[in-house]
């Protein structure tokens, strides 16, 4: 046979081989077909061996045809093997199918208390405004809770706070001091001033004092005998009521939102003068009272060991629970102390 005839035969063999490979159902079958078509005993190998009997031109034609036949068949076998392997992998994975919706709602993390979250958020806002954080004891002396705050014994305004006192009859070392549960976080103001003076670390003082406060109060939807306050204290040279107003406005925008504003309304607190209530504007145009503020009273500065002619300052305080209730639409303050998981896990 001529080279051309032989070349034609290779093409016939390739066509048939390609068809068989394309239908091969398994990788074993592919390898078997490949061996049958390209192995030592295959017709193509036989043809290659018979080339030495052909003349140069036929040998060239047949050689080219044989090369092409081998290349095509090998490529088809490899492609079929890849295809089959992919199919097998898919089958294995398909057998591992999971319904992921079965696993929804199984796990949860714990939840930080909503009051803590507000507390930390407030701290973050104030830290961003240049404040540090100070705390103090919850069991206080009458001096820190009242006297140092311009509330001498028998001051009529003391009745504004329903104070819980400690029974100190069995306590050593109390002397004639009255111990009480602090009615506000304001004692920390004087403690902070005294510490700053003692340690030479200030003024200037820019602190916020978060913490628990106590009142002799029956729990209802809007009152708790134990609650949290945070108050801001600034003591520096030349601090003005305008600084107070501006700082509260900065806080308002940082905490409540850029679109809201604050206003000050004259009020009365023994430890500040002038004193004011702080209202925050509401989207509906009304005003919501959030806390009290004022210029630190000269007597309080004196109690803190500072000269009111040299230093001035302001304080601004409010209830953390109240702010939390406003922000998160909590309608009953007792939800904060009931520790019902159905409440805690919402936040």
């Amino acid at each position, binding site marked *: 046979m001529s080279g051309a005839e032989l070349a034609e035969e290779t093409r016939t063999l390739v066509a048939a081989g390609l068809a068989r490979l394309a239908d091969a159902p398994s990788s074993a079958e592919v390898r078997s077909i490949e061996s049958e078509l390209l192995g030592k005993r295959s017709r193509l190998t036989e043809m290659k061996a018979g080339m030495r009997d052909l003349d140069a031109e036929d040998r060239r034609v047949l050689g080219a045809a044989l090369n092409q036949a081998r290349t095509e068949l090998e490529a088809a076998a490899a492609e079929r093997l890849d295809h089959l392997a992919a199919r097998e992998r898919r089958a294995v994975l398909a057998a591992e199918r999971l319904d992921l919706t079965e696993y929804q709602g199984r796990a949860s993390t*714990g939840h930080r208390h909503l009051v803590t979250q507000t507390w930390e958020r407030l701290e973050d806002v104030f830290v961003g405004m*240049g404040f540090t*954080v100070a705390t103090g004891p919850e069991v206080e002396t009458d001096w820190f809770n009242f006297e140092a705050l311009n509330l001498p014994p028998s001051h*009529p305004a003391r009745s504004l706070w329903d104070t819980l006192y400690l029974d100190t009859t069995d306590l050593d070392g109390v002397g004639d001091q009255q111990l009480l549960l602090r009615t506000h976080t304001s004692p920390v103001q004087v403690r902070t001033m005294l510490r700053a003076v003692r340690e030479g670390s200030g003024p200037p003082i820019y602190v916020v004092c978060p913490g628990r406060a106590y009142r002799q109060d029956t729990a209802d939807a809007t009152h708790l*005998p134990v609650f949290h306050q945070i108050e801001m204290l600034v003591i520096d040279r030349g601090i003005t009521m305008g600084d107070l107003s501006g700082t509260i406005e900065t806080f308002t925008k940082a905490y409540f939102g850029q679109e809201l504003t604050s206003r000050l309304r004259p009020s009365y607190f023994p430890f500040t003068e002038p004193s004011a209530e702080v209202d925050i504007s509401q989207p509906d145009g009304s005003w919501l009272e959030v806390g009290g503020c004022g210029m630190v009273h000269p007597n309080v500065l004196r109690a803190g060991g500072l000269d009111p002619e040299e230093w001035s300052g302001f304080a601004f305080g409010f209830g953390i629970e109240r702010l939390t209730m406003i922000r998160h639409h909590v309608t009953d303050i007792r939800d904060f102390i009931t520790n019902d*998981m159905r409440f805690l896990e919402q936040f």
Partner: protein
Amino acid sequence: MRVTLNWLREFAPVEGSPHDIAEQLTDLGLEVGEVTPVGSALGGVIVARVLEVREHPDADRVRLVDVDTGDGEALQIVCGASNMAAGDLVPLATVGTVMPGGMEIAARKMRGQMSNGMLCSAQELELGDDHSGILILPAEEVPGVPLTEALGLSADVVFDLEVNPNRPDALSVAGVARDLAARQGVPFTIPTPAPVGSGPTLDGAVSVTIDDPHLCGRFALRGLGGVRIGASPRWMAQRLIAAGMRPINNVVDASNYVMLELGQPTHAFDLDKVRGAQLRVRRVRAGEQLETLDGVLRALDPADGVIVDGDDVPIALAGVMGGASTEISDTTTDVIVEAAWWDPQSVADTSARHNLHSEASARFKRGMDPDIADRALDRLAELLVQQDAATLRPGSVVAEGNLPERVTVAVRPARVNAVLGLSLDRSTMVDLIDPIGFTADTVGDDLSVTIPSWRPDSTAEVDVIEEIGRMYGLSRIPRTVPVSAHPGRLDAAQRARRSVRRALAGFGVSEAMPMPFLAPGDLERCGLPAGGLVLANPLAAEESVLRSSLRPGLLGAIAYNASHRRPGVWLAEIGRVFETGERGVVVDVAESARLGRVLDGERDQLAAALAGAEAPTAVELLDVVLGSLGIGPVVLRAEERPGLHPARTAVVEVAGLDAGMVGEIDPEVLDRFGIEERVAWLELELGALLELVAPVRRARAVSRFPSTDVDLAFVVDDRVPAAAVRTTIRAVGAPLLQDLDLFDVFRSESLGVDRRSLAFRLRFQAEDRTLTDAEVGVVRQAIIDEVVATHDATLRA
């Protein structure tokens, strides 16, 4: 304090809508809570004459009333009352009238009979308390005339004000009007009452003595003769009701009216009942009693002030309430009316001691205007004389004690601007406070400000600065923001505390916040020793102890959730505990009052209760918490602790410090709480641990060389803590031992009684080289030898 717009206008021609006026009052520090229109409903009410009262054919309890509304026609009304008779004049709410409660009157059938309006009681018209029958009007009225015209009533607006304790002057209509007039720049005047006296003079007929001049600064009397006790005019009743008071009779009402108007309480005595026509002011003597006007017989305190009669018997509690024995009655004809200045502290103390709070005491304890008493008495007399309810006896009787001195304060204009953040000139400051009675003279660069008698709260420069700021308007002060020279930040302990909270949440523990109060017995219920600070004045016994442990609160919360079908709740609390024991001894409070801590026993603790989990889970949580703080080393020392499972509890030692305990709640305690699951427990002295936190954690280089793992299993006695074996391995293995993991614990009879296998995986690694098998083998053998020797262990093959 409730004031009405018409009343305010008697003192100043104030302008603006009720809304605008409310805004101005609020901006002046007189916060307006509610603005309520009154009397507008009266527009549809007219005078009607009763023509005939007939029985209702189908109902016993209602009548059919024919009335004439001025046109001579009979209009049928169905009425539930029966106090009217033909010829009476009565108020008729015509069809379409909206009553004060919001009900609209319509023509409708009642029990089959047409009713064309409603006859009204005094209460229905907000003209009094009387709802026993229809209000019968004076006979001279004319049918068809609007009731407002007939009774001199008018529509008005009530402002409900929140008055701060430093503003006794604002507990009066005149005081509120003064502030408002100043803000609006309109003139303010208190009309001078000029009642004309007649009949026998009071001088010499009555005597007054002040024994305690500190208690009573001034005691002034007027005499009223020919008193005819009766109802007050409707316009006055309307105003009293609008102000929140109940009309009683013309004398009492006039007294209340004057108090609301001018702020000065007055008190009327029935002169015939005042023995000896003598009044004396003194402190109480031991054993004295007084029946006050509210009908309560009170044992008096020697610190109370009283008014006594000629027999030296108390007849009034000074500044708080009158006595029953001299109370005016329907038959009273001769009255003496008293207006006094009482020491605020005495009144406050008496009021608090007797838990007796009156409109009078509320004003006296804030400090009365010492100059207003005579004006108030004259006004009272004027009102009663005008009403033809009494004649004023000429003359007055007055006794004087110590009145507060008029205060003058030096005010530095520069200081005013420095505090307020303004740059007002001196004359502007003067103009701001002059209308509210703070008169200023110029002294050099400064102002000398005389404080008005009605502002006892103002005694210092800063008080005047406050008034200047208030009148200027706090909202108008330009806003500035001071900048701290120091950066804001949390300190290391504050940051660490947050890390702990996040670690707890990450572990699946939610934060609880139980009340820190306990009931007596709560600690014992937890198996803890009794203790905790005791409150002197708790509201309830269940809240009388300040906790010395977080355990009752958390177990209570677990039990609460379990009872709401939420078992398996994991809760933690970070909070204060208070101790009275050895650690809680109060440290020199007397000295440290101005310095340091009050109670050594007030500490920050962290506690976690994991329902449905056992002790090992609490140990894992311990690792997580300490890991979040980056502190150690931690040693667990098996030890019984009160209230915890005796065989599943260890003391936690951190850096050599007893830092708390970990384990499980004693099942007996759980029984008492009705908790059916096990509860794992962790309790740490967080405050102490936070002090161990390093501000910065240093990195340890990670070796770049390969590591070698060796598994070793030792059989040891059950009593030998795994931690002890671990400690030995670590000690001998250092520094090449990088990691040690107890990966299996195995018990079997084949190992021997009370013995167990502890299987460790040891990872060896050097920082500077690849370890050879020989090197590892040497260390491995040393470890085996030491564990076997120290812990009576055998190596499992």
